[in-house]
């Protein structure tokens, strides 16, 4: 347990050595939304669209994309940071020391996961505050418990994918490409920027991505859009139950393989 706490503490200490990056990560999801706002204005001439409402359940597309951008912070954090965490350790030259310490690597992995989700939650809160107080986003926080429930279910699922990304890094040293690919799939096929119903392909693939259900539910809760609470929570829970053991299984398999082949500290 202390290993997890120590991992979180260490990661925060390293992060605060780079304060500019913290500011960047807070603002970047919001900056990415701005072009979508202008694009909407150019195409529709207003900030509400009936065809959009038919797909998304709300005509107001700006709050829709804002929530998408904010929640996708978790996705980038899980896949990118987890995928790169071991890569960073290789650069620092500390990877072999960490993996040869007398603790199961799963604790280190969970430690990194906890750190990233705490950090992302802080970012998400700041982003929400900016959106509410500066951009006048109207959200309802009355259902605070279900919001946290869905966030938790989302985080767990995403870190299952993050474990796989970490494993891939151990296996393929130049893993940026693969991690990007992971991200692309999640980005393109989940309703971050648009309702996935817009295209049959995105609709089909989105079914397998935990982010889809979490985004539907969180938008529903924050923007008062109708959605099926039980269906989304049960599916998310189901995906989580499958994805975490799968992520760990893949990580262990690959860790064992790299140890056998002795390619751990290569880069």
């Amino acid at each position, binding site marked *: 347990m202390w290993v997890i706490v120590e991992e979180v503490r260490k990661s925060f200490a390293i992060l605060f050595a*780079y304060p*500019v*990056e913290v500011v*960047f990560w807070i603002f*970047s999801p919001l*900056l*990415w939304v*701005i*072009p*979508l706002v*202008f*694009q*909407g*204005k*150019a*195409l*529709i*001439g207003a900030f509400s*669209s*009936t*065809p*959009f409402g*038919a*797909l*998304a359940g709300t005509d107001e*597309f700006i709050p829709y*994309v804002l929530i998408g951008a904010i929640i996708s912070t978790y996705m980038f954090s899980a896949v990118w940071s987890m995928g790169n965490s071991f890569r960073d350790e290789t650069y620092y030259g500390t990877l072999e020391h960490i993996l040869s310490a007398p603790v199961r690597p799963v604790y280190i992995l969970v430690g990194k996961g906890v750190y990233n989700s705490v950090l992302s939650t802080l970012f998400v809160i700041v982003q929400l505050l900016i959106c509410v107080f500066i951009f006048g986003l109207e959200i309802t926080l009355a259902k605070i418990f279900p919001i946290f429930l869905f966030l938790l279910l989302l985080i767990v699922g995403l870190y299952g994918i993050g474990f796989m990304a970490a494993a891939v890094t151990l296996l*393929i040293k*130049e893993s*940026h*490409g*693969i991690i*990007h*690919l992971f991200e*692309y799939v999640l*980005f*393109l096929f989940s309703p*971050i*920027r*648009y*309702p996935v119903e*817009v*295209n049959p392909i*995105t609709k089909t693939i989105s079914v397998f991505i935990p982010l889809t259900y979490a985004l539907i539910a969180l938008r529903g809760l924050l923007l008062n859009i109708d959605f099926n609470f039980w269906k989304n929570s049960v599916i998310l829970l189901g995906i989580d139950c499958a994805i975490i053991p799968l992520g760990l299984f893949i990580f262990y398999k690959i860790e064992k393989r790299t140890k056998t082949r002795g390619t751990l500290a290569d880069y």
Partner: protein
Amino acid sequence: MREERQPSRLWRVKDRVFHYLRAINAENIKEWRIELKYKPDFIRQFFEPFVYLFPYFLYGFALLGGRYSEHLRSLTGISDMIAYTFIGYLFIGFLNTACWAMGFSLRKEQWFGTLETIFVAPVPRWVYVAGMALHSTCHQGLIMLIQAVVITTFFAIVLQTSGLFLSLVVVLLMLLGLYGLGIIVAGLTIALKQWWVVSEALATLIVVVTPIAYPLAVLPFVLRKVSMFLPTTYGIIGVRHFLLGEELVVGLPTIILRLSIILVVWLTFGMLVFLIMDRFGRKRGSLSIY
């Protein structure tokens, strides 16, 4: 032995220029060779633009319930959202060239451990950046060509081929301006540890205020003024005018004139920043630290 130490032929101007050009090309070839050794990453780069582009298309589809927008037509003269967005995104790809490929070049040498080795070679330091500019322009050009062929075929977009030459001229001017930006970023990477944040923030800002997926008319007043100082604004407006017939908000001679002024200012400013940062790095001794 004495003869050997005399300034060699290299120092005659013609020879020196020839030497620098060869060094620029050597840098370009070296980069290709290294890139081709990371095959999965190399292949990925050809898919990446599509993944960035499609969300804009899908978002547009969701908003319009189709491909055509009357409102866009009233603003620009073009109703096809796909064609409009695609041309914008195609050429903004060169922003990557400046911010990432060129800016990243010296940082990468630091990682390889080769920065000091190439910095003791008898060529000025801008030569490496120029070599990197050549490489990344070729690289980005290839990616864009593939992207253009795939998207125009897939979405049946008809481009005005008669405007191809003039659009290339505009792109060239835009590109030279962006090199100025690339040189600034490359210079900053020498001195700043968190260079990529600066680079990314700059790129994001440029993407927001450049009329890529929307005309200048929808931008707030302040952002519209900012965009007037960017080469990308005129580059994209010009290209879209020549290839799709977008109605121009400023006249063509004005576009060319402003682009020319911008590129001179950016290149000069870029070289200045680079020289100051290089001197700063050599004074402080931070060249090999990262």
